[in-house]
């Protein structure tokens, strides 16, 4: 029961992007295509899970006043692992995500989970928490990327949707990202309010 709760909390109730409003930079920047969003989800979930495991294992040995630098070092190590692996096996993904791979280090979701959850709980439940948060983050990215790719490039996973249709190029660049996320948050608020009314 508790495992299910910890997993689902990251998806809906405490969704990092939609509810907590953290991890916004990658959410806006890499969502130009669905495959980019999915790769970002894999990379972030991997770093989040590994750092949560390690932090929950060493939490009793870290003096509390230097815990933040220690957490950042742990996170940066796993980000370097992701960076080197992607560069070697998926060079295309590495170039299209670009600067946002090293910037996973400063994604507040990962440091926030290490500080708030993994440094207070056991290993197993920390893994569940990391998976839930990572997938919740990734799902939001995927929905955002779906709208931006279909409207901004008239494509999905690189395949053209409607031949001869001229896409709205604005959706593929920064303004489209801001406005789409704004509209998604609006829809989310609307759904939340109508849910409260039913109760």
């Amino acid at each position, binding site marked *: 029961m508790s495992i299910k709760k910890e997993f689902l909390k990251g998806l809906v109730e405490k969704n990092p992007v939609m509810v907590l*409003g*953290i991890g*916004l*930079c990658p959410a*806006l*920047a890499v969502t130009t295509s669905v495959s980019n969003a999915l790769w970002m989800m894999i990379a972030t979930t991997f770093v989040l899970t590994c750092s949560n495991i390690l932090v929950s294992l060493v939490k009793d040995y870290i003096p509390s006043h230097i815990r*933040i*630098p220690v957490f*950042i*070092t742990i996170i*940066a*190590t796993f*980000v*370097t692992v992701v*960076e*080197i692996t992607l560069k070697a096996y998926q060079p295309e993904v590495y170039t299209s995500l*670009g*600067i946002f791979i*090293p*910037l996973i*280090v*400063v*994604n*507040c979701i990962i*440091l926030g989970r290490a500080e708030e959850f993994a440094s207070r709980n056991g290993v197993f439940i920390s893994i569940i928490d990391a998976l839930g948060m990572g997938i919740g983050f990734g799902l939001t990215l995927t929905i955002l990327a779906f709208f931006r790719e279909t409207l901004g490039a008239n494509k999905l996973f690189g395949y053209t949707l409607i031949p001869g249709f001229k896409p709205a190029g*604005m959706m593929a*660049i*920064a*303004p*489209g*990202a*801001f*406005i789409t*996320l*704004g*509209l998604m*948050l*609006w829809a989310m*608020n*609307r759904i939340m*309010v109508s849910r409260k009314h039913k109760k």
Partner: protein
Amino acid sequence: MEIKLFITILFSTIFINNYVLSQTLGICPFLGVSKKTDSAAGMGFAVIFVMTLASVITYFIYKYILLPFSITYLRTIAFILVIASIVQLVEMAINKLSPSLYRALGIFLPLITTNCAVLGVAVLNVDSGFITKEFGLLMTIVQGFGAGVGFLLALMLMSGIRERLETADIPFNLRGMPISFIIAGLLSLAFLGFAGMSF
């Protein structure tokens, strides 16, 4: 000749490639601290200072430590630790030298460590090949300073608009984050106009 190059870098980082509005870096502080103009100005100046300093120090670290020992894959770890220590040092130095400045900037300084624009400018300095060029140090300084000024500009514009929004009659579900995102989108659309600028 060189002067023209520096001016091009400065203007392109402030206007054309504004870190917040066209590259979507540093969104968390951009939305978090832009509720009041005073705190927006404080945050902006702190970011200019830290970005310029971080650019200079990461330049030396990359050129004289990481490159000669061919350990450039440690870039992410080295840079984030350097930035975290710079922020800590600056905080202590300002506290000792000018308590009044510390009271104005103090609360923003710890937040800068997780501002992805700061790590972003350090990584971009390396990626754009400034390290090995002639006058590389000056170019990194100009790019770091310009990125900070661009951040300040975006933050000031946003806070000015958000202060006026307080009295505006916005639909209930759109209040708070959704309307901020839509305004950020419109601002970034306006900044798109600078893309046509050339020197």
